[in-house]
């Protein structure tokens, strides 16, 4: 093919395609230089910048994800710790409350018992005092009444104190004895 072309080229006035025309060389060189600068100064730097940004972004995202992961793990750990602490505290409070309740209960019980005993003792003392005073007043009043009565009945004044007292005492002893027997 090449031969036939060259022959065809040499046959007529046609020109040889292997001999460059000056305008062809000039415009080729101009085009090449323009495109070279275009790629060198504009396209490839833009591309490089974008690729750098992209890899930086990918690395940044991986970094961010790592940080988030670590934060999440730390938060989980903290939460777990707090939960455990809260549980322990709750258990402690519950235990304390139970102990307190027991203590308060027994205290109240003891207090109540003491109060009751004291009230009972006071009542007994009061009763005893009442009884004593009643007994004393009864003894003197009943004695004089009985003597008055007896004086009236027997018509004789039991002026002799000694005798009178002895008589009243005997009478009261009898009364007490019969009273005791009646109670029983």
């Amino acid at each position: 093919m090449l031969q036939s072309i060259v022959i065809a080229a040499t046959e007529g006035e046609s020109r040889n395609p292997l001999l460059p025309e000056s305008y062809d060389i000039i415009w080729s060189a101009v085009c090449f230089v323009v495109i070279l600068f275009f790629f060198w100064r504009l396209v490839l730097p833009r591309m490089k910048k974008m690729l750098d940004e992209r890899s930086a972004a990918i690395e940044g995202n991986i970094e961010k994800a790592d940080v988030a992961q670590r934060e999440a793990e730390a938060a989980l750990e903290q939460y777990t710790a707090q939960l455990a602490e809260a549980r322990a505290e709750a258990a402690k409070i519950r235990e304390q409350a139970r102990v307190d309740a027991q203590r308060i209960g027994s205290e109240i019980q003891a207090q109540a018992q003491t109060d009751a005993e004291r009230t009972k003792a006071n009542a007994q003392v009061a009763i005893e005092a009442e009884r004593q005073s009643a007994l004393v007043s009864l003894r003197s009043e009943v004695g004089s009444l009985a003597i008055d009565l007896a004086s009236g009945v027997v018509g004789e004044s039991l002026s002799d104190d000694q005798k009178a007292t002895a008589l009243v005492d005997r009478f009261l002893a009898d009364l007490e004895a019969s009273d005791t027997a009646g109670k029983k």
Partner: protein
Amino acid sequence: MATSDDGGFHGPSIDEFFPDAIFFAGTPFEINRIILIRFIAMLAIVLIFWIGTRRMRMVPGRFQSVVEMGLDFTRVNIAEDLLGKKDGRRFLPLITTVFFVVLFANLTGIIPFMNISSNAIIGMPLVLAVVAWLAFMYAGIKKHPGAFFKNALFPPGVPKALYIIVTPIEFVSTFVLRPITLTLRLLMNMLVGHLLLVLFFSATQFFFFTATQTSIFYGLFGVGTLAFGFVFTLFEVLVAVLQAYVFALLTTVYIQLALADEH
């Protein structure tokens, strides 16, 4: 383009590649149809990559993804793969430029109304080959000052007597043939591809509209040539991409060989 009105069939000729001047005729800045097509291809590069990288987002849209894919192809699969990260970055602008200039200029060969690759005239392949040639020499001299030409022309480990044979061979293959093969491989692929397509489609034109006046059966030949033209158009897409890849890859390989410690 290749058919004329006189009724006979005219195959494509080499004049296809030397159209009439449109601007600045006769000056070194002459602009013809093919040069305009070259400008359009370069304009397409500038527009696509300018818009594609204007507001780059970290999460790319559809268009940015395509642009990124193209740039990643030269960066990862060619530059960094062969030269490593550090040297790959140094020569990335050059390799990217070579790849996309060749690719876009090649693709105009199958775009309707342009239908010719501006790499089918020798200027651009030659300029790119010279750039590749200068690039690998620059890389070698910068890396091994003083030792680059010695290592290239007098490979270590070869008996001294053999240098009589080895040195001329090394000189021709490294410093002469590399730019020539780079130029011719691209030029001829595009030139022949264009001639083939013109041949198929002008033959189709001839069979359908001229030969059918003689016999309707010639139309069947036209169907055949049209099918071939269609298949070869698809093939040209493959060739366009492949030649761009090969040119960028070889440029990178030459730089890699110049940077290597041992030749």
